[in-house]
C-alpha cells in the first residue's frame, strides 16, 4: 500500500458556535470502502462536506489525490462523485436533465451506466425530482454520483429513507463500482448492517472526535464476549465490561486471548464465547473516549 493517498486530512479542525470538529487526522489509501459511523450530530456530514470544499477547516490540511483546495478544485472534483445529505436545487429537474447537466462537468461521464442505473431503480427519466419519493430521490442522487466515472465516491447516508430492497441494490452497486481495484468509497451511515456487509475500514466519529480508523475484520475478530461461571477477581487484562449478577456472568474483552488466559489462571470456566457486534463495540469505544482513559 504505497503511493498517493486518496484522502488525507492533516489535523483539521472546525469550530461552530455549538459544535467542534477535530482535530482529525485521517489517511485513506485507494482501493477501500471506508464507513464513517457515529451518532447524528457527530460530524459525519461536516467531514464529508469538508472533503468537497463546501466547508473550510479553521486549521489543518485537506488533500485529495495529492491536490489541495482551492488551487486544484476542478481537477479534484472531476474525480469525485458526491451524494450530499440533501440534494438541493434538483426539485424542478428531471433525471434526464440532471444527467445532462452533471455530465458537462465530468469528462468520464458514463451515460450508459446512468441509464442502466435509472432503469434498475425504476426511475422515470422525465419525472421531476421533487415529485419522486424520498427513497427514489436518494437512488437518483446515487446514480448521478456513480455515473460521473469518478475514482472516489463520497456518500453521505446514501441509503437514508430507502427501502430494504433498494438498499440492497445500492450496496450491490457500490460493490460493483469497487471491482475496479483502485477505486475508493467513503460513506457515512448509521446502519451497521451496511458496514458489516461492504466496509473494509470503519471510522468512528463521535462528538466531533475521531475514534480511530479500524480495520473492520480486525475489529470483529479482536473483541469477544465470554460467559463465565463466576465473576473474576481483581484486574483481568482486556476486560472492557463485566455485567455483574448475571448467571452466567457476561464479560466483554478487547484482547480475548489474554482475557481467556487470565480467567483460566483463576480457574474460571468459560461457559460460552461469542462475538461482539459493531454497535456494541462502538458503544464501548464511545464510553472509553468520554472517560478519557486509554486511546
Amino acid at each position, binding site marked *: 500500500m504505497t503511493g498517493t493517498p486518496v484522502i488525507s486530512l492533516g489535523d483539521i479542525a472546525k469550530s461552530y458556535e455549538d459544535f467542534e470538529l477535530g482535530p482529525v487526522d485521517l489517511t485513506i489509501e485507494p*482501493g*477501500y470502502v471506508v464507513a464513517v459511523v457515529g451518532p447524528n450530530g457527530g460530524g459525519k456530514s461536516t467531514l464529508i462536506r469538508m472533503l468537497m470544499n463546501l466547508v473550510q477547516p479553521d486549521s489543518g490540511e485537506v488533500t485529495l489525490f495529492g491536490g489541495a483546495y482551492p488551487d486544484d478544485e476542478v481537477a479534484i472534483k472531476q474525480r469525485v462523485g458526491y451524494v450530499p445529505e440533501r440534494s438541493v436545487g434538483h426539485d424542478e429537474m428531471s433525471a434526464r436533465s440532471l444527467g445532462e447537466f452533471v455530465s458537462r462537468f465530468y469528462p468520464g461521464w*458514463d451515460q450508459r*451506466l446512468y441509464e442502466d442505473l435509472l432503469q434498475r431503480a425504476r426511475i422515470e427519466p422525465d419525472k421531476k425530482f421533487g415529485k419522486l419519493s424520498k427513497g427514489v430521490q436518494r437512488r437518483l442522487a446515487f446514480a448521478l454520483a456513480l455515473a460521473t466515472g469518478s475514482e472516489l465516491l463520497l456518500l453521505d447516508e446514501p441509503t437514508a429513507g430507502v427501502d430494504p430492497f433498494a438498499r440492497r441494490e445500492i450496496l450491490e452497486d457500490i*460493490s*460493483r*463500482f*469497487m*471491482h*475496479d*481495484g483502485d477505486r475508493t468509497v467513503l460513506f457515512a451511515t448509521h446502519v451497521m448492517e451496511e458496514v*458489516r*456487509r*461492504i*466496509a*473494509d*475500514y470503519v471510522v468512528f466519529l463521535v462528538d466531533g472526535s475521531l475514534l480511530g480508523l479500524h*480495520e*473492520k*475484520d*480486525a475489529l*470483529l*475478530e479482536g473483541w469477544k464476549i465470554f460467559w463465565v461461571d463466576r465473576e473474576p477477581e481483581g484486574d483481568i487484562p482486556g476486560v472492557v465490561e463485566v455485567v455483574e449478577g448475571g448467571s452466567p456472568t457476561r464479560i466483554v474483552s478487547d484482547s480475548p486471548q489474554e482475557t481467556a488466559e487470565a480467567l483460566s489462571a483463576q480457574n474460571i470456566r468459560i461457559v460460552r*464465547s*461469542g*462475538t461482539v457486534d459493531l454497535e456494541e463495540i462502538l458503544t464501548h469505544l464511545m464510553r472509553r473516549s468520554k472517560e478519557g482513559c486509554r486511546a
Partner: protein
Amino acid sequence: MSAGQKQVRIPLHLSLDDPQPMYRQIESQLRDFILGGQLKPGTKLPTIRALAGDLSCSVITTRRAYQDLEGEGFIRTRQGMGTLVAEIPEEKMSAYRREAVDGAFREAVRAGRRAGLTEEELRDILEETLQREDTNVHQGGTS
C-alpha cells in the same frame, strides 16, 4: 464497470466463532478444495473484492489469504489474468494429503492418551477401525 465474466462461486463459509482468524479460514478451505480436486489447476478465482463481497469480509482479509496461498504455491496471480489455481506437482499434492492424515492421526493419538489408553489399546482401535471401514466399503459404503 463491465458486466464481468462468469466466475466460479466457491462455497466458502466464514465463522466469527471459529478461533481461527478469517483469512486463515479462507486459506484452509481453499487449500482443501484445491487438494481435493474440486478446484482444478487453471480455474479462475474471484477477485479479492468479489470474494470479500460474497463473504462480507474486507479485502484486507481476502488479500492476505490469497497472498499466503500464493506464497505456498497453490494459486498464482497474473497481471491482467486475475488469480488462478496453480499447477501443483504430484509429489507436493501427496505430501499435503499425507500431512492432513498425519495430523488426524496425531490428534487421535492425543485424544487416546488423554483418555488414558495404552499403546496396545490404541493399536487395537486402529485395527478395529480399519476392519469396520473395510466392511463398510464392501457393503456399499456410506451412501
